[in-house]
């Protein structure tokens, strides 16, 4: 590894299939991995991880950007953190009411086959994460 990179700052890139959401410098990034939050500081070892629905935080000095990401993948390499996610919404734009409705819809989904259960669990987890974030930021 290049030792000089460890002192410099991180770069955070968030892309969804529809657009490139974010491309900024950061000091510290928290990724919502599938099994819990995961902090990345400059000079982190290369990593590929699966994301769960949750909150992505990007710290830039005093300011912290917060996003809701709906699963996907994260790649850490040479101080660049790339987040690939089907959906990324700024945390303050996650509205509580549709999130509650989503949870109700998710709970009402059929769960007769393993495949259906899988989809239902994913939808429930996503809706719960939305509710958590909307409560935190409103």
């Amino acid at each position: 590894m290049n030792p000089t990179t460890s002192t410099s700052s991180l770069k955070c890139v968030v892309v969804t299939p529809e657009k490139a959401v974010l491309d900024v410098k950061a000091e510290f990034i928290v990724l919502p991995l599938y099994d819990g939050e995961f902090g990345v500081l400059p000079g982190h070892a290369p990593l590929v991880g699966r994301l769960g629905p949750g909150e992505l935080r990007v710290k830039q000095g005093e300011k912290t950007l917060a996003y809701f990401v709906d699963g996907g993948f994260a790649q850490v390499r040479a101080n660049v953190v790339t987040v690939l996610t089907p959906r990324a919404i700024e945390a303050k734009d996650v509205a509580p009411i549709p999130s509650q409705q989503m949870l109700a819809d998710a709970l009402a989904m059929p769960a007769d086959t393993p495949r259906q259960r899988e989809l239902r669990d994913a939808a429930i987890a996503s809706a719960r994460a939305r509710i958590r974030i909307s409560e935190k930021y409103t």
Partner: protein
Amino acid sequence: MANSRVLLKRRKAVRNIRKITRTMELIATTRFKKALDRATEAEAYTRKIAELAVDLSCSAGEVSHPLLEKRPTIRKNLLLVLTANRGLCGGYNSNVLREAARRIAELRTANTEFDLEMSGKRGATWCRFQGLALSAFYDKFEDKPQFAQVAELATKYITLYVGGQIDRLDVAYMKFHNPARQEAVVETLLPLSTLVTSTRHGCDPVAADGTTAVDYEYAPSAADILSELVPMAFQVRLFKCFLDAAVSEQIARRIAMKAATENAAELIKSITREYNRARQAHITKELAEIIAGAEALK
């Protein structure tokens, strides 16, 4: 001798048509630009997914995923055709439908059962005309297909495929190569042929460009991530089909409207010429009459 008033009226009508087609051309141009921007934005995501897939398959080795396995016998085929909701776009719809019809004929000769799904009102009309039954029809994908909508569709297909209700998924659409070249194609999306579209740097520890391949940490294991990545790759592929179709539609519409505008301009020219000739003939005739009248009075 053509009536000059009729000619004037016709010229006015053609001028109005030219105005309309010209506006439609401009609208198609802006929509095309927007659609192309979206397609380029999606490109970044596709490229990243492909890169990840390369890195992962280097660590995880051969992957086996239900979506990647080719089935020995195809009992049921699903054909999704992407057409436009509206016409006035030249040969766009008919080219896609011709490809689709060819695939349908192939399936019929092979005696394979198939379901037909259609996006776009034009295609639905064609099916009614051909007497083909549609198992699903979508008209919500306009020139800005949303990823969430496409992902929903993709999830449905994955469920059908994994559950064994379909053995193959084909998509007929207009593939976008560059602004000057689009091509109607039928592509097999399921089973996914390859996850890794281009193995640029292969799996060697030292790549061709001299940089060493990165040794990643994986959370969870590389194989687990890959199995998550496969459905994602399929969703993106399907989304790309929709985006390509949207871009191609706008290009086709722009070209058709451009041709229409040019034709109208030419028509106006020829009508003007005819009108002037008629006017001239009228004047000459009147003059001749006056002179003849004056002669008679002498």
